């Protein structure tokens, strides 16, 4: 009973935190509420018996990601906050509640299967059994970094309107020349 209460409170708080993050009218606050979700969830994850993931979630999810968000927010600013939603809210509500309830209906109560607890350690699983995941992850990080560099790279010469105009004008000139030299076509027979 106590267990149920603790889990219920933590999960409820996480959802509340997520809602607050959604409702927050400043991006910074939103990011901090997100960190809150992360902290609460890492406790739940710890309680579920996964301390290592809890630690990583805490450090990456609550720490690193929040720092990144704060950085991004300071660079980019906050347009579109609090603007009226483009999708009618009742429609969004309806669809979300509908599919959420159905998902719960399908999933709960989950069947209890005979579970065999493996006797290896996380280290063995993570570094040996699932080593391929790790390798692909390296590829993913590599491409992510390259992508980041690519997207944020300073342009050598930013595209200026004057340049575009120049191209257009040049082409216009070419066209006029072409028209002068163009040979008149013979009318095709009917």
């Amino acid at each position, binding site marked *: 009973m106590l267990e149920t209460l603790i889990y219920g409170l933590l999960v409820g708080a996480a959802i509340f935190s997520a809602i607050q993050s959604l409702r927050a009218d400043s991006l910074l606050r939103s990011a901090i509420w997100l960190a809150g979700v992360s902290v609460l969830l890492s406790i739940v994850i710890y309680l579920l018996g996964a301390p290592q993931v809890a630690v990583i979630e805490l450090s990456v999810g609550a720490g690193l990601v929040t720092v990144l968000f704060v950085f991004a927010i300071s660079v980019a600013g906050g347009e579109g906050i609090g603007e009226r*939603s*483009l*999708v009618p809210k009742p*429609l*969004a509500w309806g*669809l*979300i509640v*509908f*599919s959420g309830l*159905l*998902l719960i*209906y*399908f999933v709960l109560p989950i069947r209890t299967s005979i579970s065999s607890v493996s006797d290896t350690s996380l280290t063995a699983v993570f570094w040996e059994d699932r080593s391929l995941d790790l390798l692909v992850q390296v590829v993913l990080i590599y491409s992510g970094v390259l992508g980041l560099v690519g997207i944020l790279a300073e342009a050598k010469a930013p595209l200026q309107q004057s340049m575009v105009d120049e191209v257009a004008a040049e082409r216009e000139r070419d066209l006029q020349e072409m028209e002068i030299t163009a040979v008149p*076509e*013979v009318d*095709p*027979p*009917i």
Partner: protein
Amino acid sequence: MAALLVTLTIGLPWIGALLVLLSGDERPKLQHTIASIISVAAGISAVVLLWFTSDQPVLSIPMGSAFGVFTFVPDALGVLLAVIANVVGSLAVIFSIDYMKGNEQLGRYYALVMFFIGAMAGLGISGSLLLMFLFWEITAFCSYALISFHNDDPKAVAAGIKALIITQLGGIGLLVGALIINSFVGSYQINAFLAEAESLPFNVLVLLAFCFLAAAIAKSAQVPLHTWLPDAMEAPTPVSALIHAATMVNAGVYLVARFFPAFEIVPGWTTSVLVVGMISALLGALMALVAADLKRALAYSTISQLGYMFFAVGVGAVFASQFHLLSHAIFKALLFLCAGAVIPAVGTRNMRQMGGLRKSMPFVFTVFVIGSLALVGLPIANGFFSKELILEEGFIHGPMWAYIGMLLGVGLTALYVSRMVFMVFYGQSHGEKPIHDGLLWMRVSLSALAIGVFTTWLLAGVLSDLMAQTLPFHGIHAIGTFELAKEIVLAPATWVSLAVIALGIGVWILREPLAGIKNLLRPVARIIEKGLGFEQLNQGIINGTKNLSAALHLTQTGQLNWNILGIVGMLSVLFALLFIGV
């Protein structure tokens, strides 16, 4: 030998197409030469193939897995189509030497025409349904590309696409039919299907029969899928003569004739074919009667004549339909090519602006009249024998109402042909004086066709003999040419229809006294002129689709949130489906 001939008949035009393309548009003379020499050679090889007809495949190419074996069976039905395609094709190419002189993109023109000729020959000779479908589609493609040959003209583009889409819609019938046959018979071979047709489940056979009929109706421009053919007259005139009069439009008739033995047991099928033929014959003639555009009038007349062939198949007279197919190919190609000589000479397609050309274009006038004789069905032109044979068979085997309908059609034909000849060649000249009376190469092909009008009926005996030998499922009896001629001339149906023809011509001659009736019919004429509402139906479908498409474009808002809604929405729908299903 037969295998070689088949390869030549189909392959020569295709090689020619490639050569013309490769020789480049900078050398038009070379292109003209290559095209005409090769198409004549292909014509010869097709004619020689007549001596090698057979009901067995002469060439088989296994294609593996889902594609069966590609076979070529040069039986009489197929070779007839191939001969018409290659011979009329070569004449059209020769005509084009003068007609297309000075045009741009000659390479594309000749390549497409030659590609078409080869495909049309292949369509006839192929013994595998998939192969036949391939050729069927290639002919449709060439037809589209040639109709919109003058791509700068939006009307030509629209007409080309319309023709392509309507014939392709019909093609779905053939496609589904071929697939079903493959699935139930285990191969695409036409003869295998004809042999086993009766053992197929009955509902499958019914489905097949009507699938094929739909394909045939679209390809042969029969009512209600005929609207593409008049529009197709935007094509260069030799193309109209070749594709839209002499060859491709025959493919539908060929199809129903080819599969007649399998489907004649399907109740209602022969009647449907007969009714489609009769309605097309009548409506086509009516529309030809009011058309002002010379080429459109000829196109409506084609619809009407193809109706006669359908009618013939509907009453079970497969030989008569093929006989008329041959005659029609010759005389209608002649008429179209005459139009092709007249139109550039006077610079208009509108018959109201022509007139009095009898004196200034005597040669063209003569051959046009010869073609008209055949179209009306006057002796001793080939059209006389073939049309009378159809009417006689209709009188004996068909229902009375249908026969009377066809007779009415004969009268209307006489009427509109008289009107056409008069408007173009007699009366006052309304336009400018023509600049020539047919150039040299135009005259060559016109003369050849004019001779054909008087001689091809002599082939009836050979044709029936070959068909009797090589079509094991059709039950055609061999009959000598003169026997047949005698039978036709002595049949009472012939005299009735000659009387009707006289009546038709008489009505035209007496049109002044009958002006009152004409005025009474004016509102009707106006409706007919607008295509009897079929055109509006087409337009309605097109507009409906466009509106639907425009409405759907609005759903792509470009806004991220709505895009996400697509994901969530579909998830809800699938969950709901699962919920209902579980």
